[in-house]
């Protein structure tokens, strides 16, 4: 064949080339071969396409749908196996419902073509199809039952994702789902016949799950009834069916009672019958199971006997109990959202339910027949709580009706109510439901109070003695007064649900009421003496203590305080007595109390209407709040009054002050007594003491003022002390300018001393030691740099005050010295004169002899005048002048001493040196000296020159005044000294 072909090819090629057709050579052998073969295959394909598709030939294998073969091919199903529980349930369903089974094959038939189509379409994407495209399901029931579930899960997963984006409204989504479901229903409509055997349970809207019944019964210790707690076979069957439910129940059974209670409470919350609690449920249950209870009555009573008291009450009939349940449900609905309180009150409810149970157990013995008939009549799952259905939703059933509620209607009503009250308050509903009523003012509070009172009085009259009764009368008047305290609030908050529970119990549950109320009263006993009573007494009694302590005298004070202490410690009765006893000034407080009592009495007088119970908490709370407000206001007023009275007494009776002062002085012994007795009292005592002290201080201050006024004169006496060493201690006022440093004081003291000495001694010319010391000091001042600025400062500070001070000091010292001088000056004078003897013997003696006493007198008189005059003239510049004099003298003395020792010729200097003194002091003697010696005249001339110069200097300095700086002064003095020395 191939050879032929080659030959043919060659022939063809030659033919093509001969003909000149294109591609003859170019195609070549391979190309021809391909062409030929392709033609052949095409022919073959045309033959077989009509019969069998290639894909089916290649892919469709026998037995390929087995899971094992799929796995061999590497095809694994994407979906996990369904949970076993589902399988089990559905198997059970399949086993139960035979008709339902019949529907399934139809579905199976319907499904595969669809899946096959999908498979044909999605041949390429093989991941999902194998599971879906199972044309021959191995496990029919499982897969096909789970299949719609899976598809729905896929759809919802997609939908969820879209919903999470939240652009699609739930309504639209719902519509889509509904449409889908309708489509699906249409397809399966024919198959759906009656599948009433499907094990779901239809319950009423007030249904409480069997678990809770079970729990409640378990909690009550009636485990024997657990297995047969329900007359419904359906539920029993369900319970047996639900393995997990059974396990849950078993687990729950093993839990403790408290948890069971919580779960029951939770179920109550779900049912929106908040406060109905176990009682009502057990009413229902027990009415349903009364027969069984009847059968097992002995067991029940043995089980319950330990937890219950003897039945002494008014054992209610069954109808009565249902009525009670109705009323209780009304009241209980009024409690609304008190889940938390309901949870908190579990313990009490256990007792109540036990009591109720026993009562009902006893009552069911009497009237069991109706229940059995009713239960027996209802063979279906519905209405197993026909009795119970009355109770929980009794108020709502009136309104609600059997049909479901159209939300539009409700919302219309709601919105109308909203429009009336701007926002969310809907009083319109109050007409329908009186359980939540708005605050209506104080009037309802009285009614509420009366309600409370009546309940308490009932209890109190039954078994509580008068003390407790009085307690209860007083406590509500006190507790709201002290409403501000959180503890009391908490206690009241705790108490209110009890009261509600009481109310909910109704009249037939008096025994548990009693129990509750006794508990309550005990609780109040426990609470009130500790917190409320103390707090009530404290604000009352303490101001009273204060008032008493302020008002009463010291003798009665301690007694009163003892009373108060007793008051604080004793209980309410004692406090009442005390309050009545000490009602003198307690009038505001007592009035408040009285008003409270009056209120309660008034409220007691108000008739006890049954509707009040519905008003419930709001009224109580408002009442408490108002009472607390009143109490606060009154307390404030009372405090104000107390303070006002106290102040008025303090201010209005000044004659008490001396008594206070006397007590203040005497109170020391009293405080010793009182301090042993009381602790809070010493505060007042301290106040009193402080008052006494202050009063004493006041008097002291007045004395001080007097003494100050006296001291004003003495100040001038004290001032001279600055001059001496004693002046160092004394202050020169608080002014910083006059604050004296230690250095300043030292130096100044020395200066003062030396200045004083100089001033004193200079006229007498007894300057040897003093001038030396002064010269030394002056050198020290000038030499030491540290003293330089101080000196400058000191000199600049030689303000008129200081000058005046200096002048004063000088004057005084001179006066003093002048008085003393005559004795001293004589000696000094003689000493000086001794020096002069050698030179001026005759003159001296004559002068002395002639003018001894008058000269001395003149010296004593004139010198101060002379010194005063320049001081008066040159007030600012007097001291430097004096200083210059001293400087001059000191220098002159030094020079004199030196010259006197070295040169004997110079005594003339001494003469003219002394001349200024003598000229100042005794100008009369000039005549004598001029006459005596010619040199003396020359000296006097020089002295006159010098004197003139000095006066010139003084004048010059006066002209310049204080404006001259110290440097100028010093330089001037230096020039002056130079001049003098040169002269």
């Amino acid at each position, binding site marked *: 064949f191939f050879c032929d072909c080659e030959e043919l090819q060659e022939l063809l090629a030659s033919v093509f080339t001969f003909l000149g057709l294109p591609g003859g050579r170019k195609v070549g052998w391979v190309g021809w071969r391909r062409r030929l073969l392709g033609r052949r295959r095409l022919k073959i394909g045309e033959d077989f396409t009509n019969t069998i598709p290639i894909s089916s030939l290649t892919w469709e294998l026998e037995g390929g749908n087995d899971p094992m073969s799929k796995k061999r091919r590497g095809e694994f199903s994407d979906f996990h196996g369904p949970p076993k529980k*589902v399988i*089990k*349930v559905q198997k059970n*369903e399949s086993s139960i*419902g035979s008709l*339902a089974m019949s*529907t399934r094959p139809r579905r199976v038939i319907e499904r595969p073509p669809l899946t096959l189509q999908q498979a044909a379409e999605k041949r390429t994407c093989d991941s999902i199809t194998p599971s879906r495209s199972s044309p021959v399901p191995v496990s029919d029931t499982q897969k096909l*039952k789970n299949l*719609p*579930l899976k598809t*729905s*899960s896929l759809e*919802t*997963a997609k939908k*969820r994702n879209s919903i*999470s984006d939240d652009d699609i*409204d739930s309504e639209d989504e719902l519509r889509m*789902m*509904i449409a889908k479901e309708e489509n*699906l229903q249409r397809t*399966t409509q024919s198959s759906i016949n*009656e*599948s009433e055997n*499907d094990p*779901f*349970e*239809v*319950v009423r*809207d007030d*249904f409480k*799950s069997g*678990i809770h019944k079970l729990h409640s019964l378990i909690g009550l210790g009636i485990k024997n009834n657990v297995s047969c707690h329900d007359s419904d076979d359906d539920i029993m069957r369900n319970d047996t069916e*639900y*393995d*997990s*439910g059974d396990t849950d129940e078993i687990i729950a059974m093993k839990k403790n009672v408290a948890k069971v209670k919580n*779960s029951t409470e939770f179920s109550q919350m*779900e049912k*929106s019958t*908040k406060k109905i609690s176990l009682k009502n449920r057990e009413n229902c249950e027990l009415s349903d199971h009364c027969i069984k209870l009847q059968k097992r009555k002995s067991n029940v009573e043995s089980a319950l006997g330990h937890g219950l008291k003897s039945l002494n009450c008014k054992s209610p009939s069954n109808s009565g109990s249902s009525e009670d349940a109705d009323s209780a449900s009304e009241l209980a609905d009024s409690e*609304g*959202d*008190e*889940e938390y309180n309901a949870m908190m009150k579990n313990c009490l409810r256990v007792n109540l339910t036990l009591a109720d149970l026993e009562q009902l157990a006893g009552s069911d013995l009497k009237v069991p027949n109706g229940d059995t008939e009713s239960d027996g009549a209802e063979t279906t799952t519905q209405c197993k709580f026909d009795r119970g259905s009355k109770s929980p939703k009794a108020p709502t059933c009136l309104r*609600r009706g059997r049909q479901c*509620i159209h*939300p539009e209607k*409700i*919302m219309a009503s*709601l*919105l109308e109510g*909203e429009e009336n009250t701007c*926002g*969310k308050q809907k009083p319109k*509903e109050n007409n*329908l*439901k009186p359980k*939540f009523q708005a605050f209506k003012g104080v009037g309802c509070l009285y009614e509420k109070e009366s309600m409370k009172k009546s309940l308490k009085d009932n209890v109190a009259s039954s078994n509580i003695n008068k003390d407790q009764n009085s307690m209860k009368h007083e406590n509500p008047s006190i507790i709201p007064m002290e409403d501000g305290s959180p503890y009391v609030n908490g206690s009241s908050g705790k108490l209110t649900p009890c009261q509600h529970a009481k109310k909910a119990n109704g009249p037939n549950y008096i025994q548990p009421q009693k129990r509750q109320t006794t508990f309550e009263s005990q609780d109040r006993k426990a609470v009130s003496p500790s917190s409320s009573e103390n707090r009530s007494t404290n604000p009352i009694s303490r101001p009273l203590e204060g008032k008493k302590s302020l008002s009463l005298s010291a003798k009665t004070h301690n007694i009163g305080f003892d009373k108060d202490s007793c008051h604080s410690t004793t209980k309410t009765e004692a406090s009442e007595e005390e309050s009545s006893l000490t009602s003198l000034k307690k009038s505001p407080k007592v009035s408040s109390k009285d008003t409270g009592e009056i209120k309660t009495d008034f409220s007691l007088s108000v008739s006890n209407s049954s509707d009040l119970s519905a008003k419930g*908490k*709001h009224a109580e709370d408002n009442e408490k709040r108002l009472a607390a407000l009143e109490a606060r206001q009154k307390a404030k007023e009372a405090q104000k009054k107390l303070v006002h009275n106290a102040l008025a007494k303090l201010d209005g009776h000044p004659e008490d002050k001396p008594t206070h002062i006397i007590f203040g002085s005497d109170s020391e012994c009293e405080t010793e007594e009182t301090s042993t007795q009381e602790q809070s009292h010493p505060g007042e005592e301290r106040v009193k003491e402080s008052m006494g002290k202050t009063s004493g201080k006041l008097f002291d201050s007045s004395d001080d003022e007097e003494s100050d006024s006296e001291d004003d004169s003495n100040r001038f006496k004290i001032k001279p002390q600055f001059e001496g060493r004693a002046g160092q201690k004394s202050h020169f006022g608080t002014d910083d300018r006059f604050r004296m440093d230690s250095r300043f004081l030292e130096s100044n003291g020395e200066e003062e001393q030396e200045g004083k000495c100089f001033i004193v001694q200079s006229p007498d010319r007894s300057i040897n030691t003093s001038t030396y010391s002064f010269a030394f000091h002056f050198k020290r001042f000038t030499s030491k740099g540290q003293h330089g600025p101080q000196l400058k400062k000191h000199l600049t500070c030689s303000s008129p005050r200081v000058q005046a001070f200096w002048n004063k000091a000088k004057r005084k010292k001179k006066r003093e010295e002048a008085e003393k001088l005559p004795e001293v000056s004589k000696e000094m004078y003689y000493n000086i004169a001794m020096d002069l003897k050698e030179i001026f013997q005759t003159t001296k003696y004559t002068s002395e002899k002639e003018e001894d006493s008058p000269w001395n007198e003149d010296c004593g008189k004139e010198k101060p005048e002379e010194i005063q005059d320049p001081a008066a003239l040159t007030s600012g510049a007097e001291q430097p002048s004096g200083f210059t004099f001293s400087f001059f003298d000191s220098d002159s003395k030094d020079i004199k001493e030196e010259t006197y020792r070295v040169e004997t010729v110079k005594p003339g200097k001494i003469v003219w040196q002394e001349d200024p003194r003598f000229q100042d002091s005794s100008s009369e003697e000039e005549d004598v000296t001029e006459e005596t010696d010619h040199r003396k005249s020359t000296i006097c001339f020089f002295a006159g020159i010098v004197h003139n110069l000095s006066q010139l200097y003084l004048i010059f300095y006066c002209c310049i005044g204080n404006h001259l700086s110290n440097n100028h002064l010093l330089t001037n003095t230096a020039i002056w000294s130079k001049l003098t020395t040169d002269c």
Partner: protein
Amino acid sequence: MRPLTEEETRVMFEKIAKYIGENLQLLVDRPDGTYCFRLHNDRVYYVSEKIMKLAANISGDKLVSLGTCFGKFTKTHKFRLHVTALDYLAPYAKYKVWIKPGAEQSFLYGNHVLKSGLGRITENTSQYQGVVVYSMADIPLGFGVAAKSTQDCRKVDPMAIVVFHQADVGEYVRHEETLT
């Protein structure tokens, strides 16, 4: 954060009233304090007055959430309840559906409730009535809309959907990032 407008309030109340009916009043008119609805970031929060006042101190852009989110308004101004409202809907629910333990997981994954998973249903539940879905142990799992009335549920195919899923507590995990 602002109070709802009247229209918003109406829409939201209509939605809530589908589940709890007139018990909605109990949410609004609470004896333990004043509670109100506030709109923040298109979400409606149910918040006590006290907390609302406290939250007023926080600037709007910084405030993530306050109180309890009840749901959100869609862009078409419809209200969508979130699962966070379940705690308030469950105690007051009027129509309930209990699902079997085997169907719990399916429901908590966001699937509808089939008849086969229906354990118990309140009687007289009408079609498209809002229902709260409980487990058989009375644990609220979510809420939905009844696809069938109670009577229809008796007849319906076991695979038929009886409750359309609206929200379930599994969203706390699945939509953790969007729930506030």
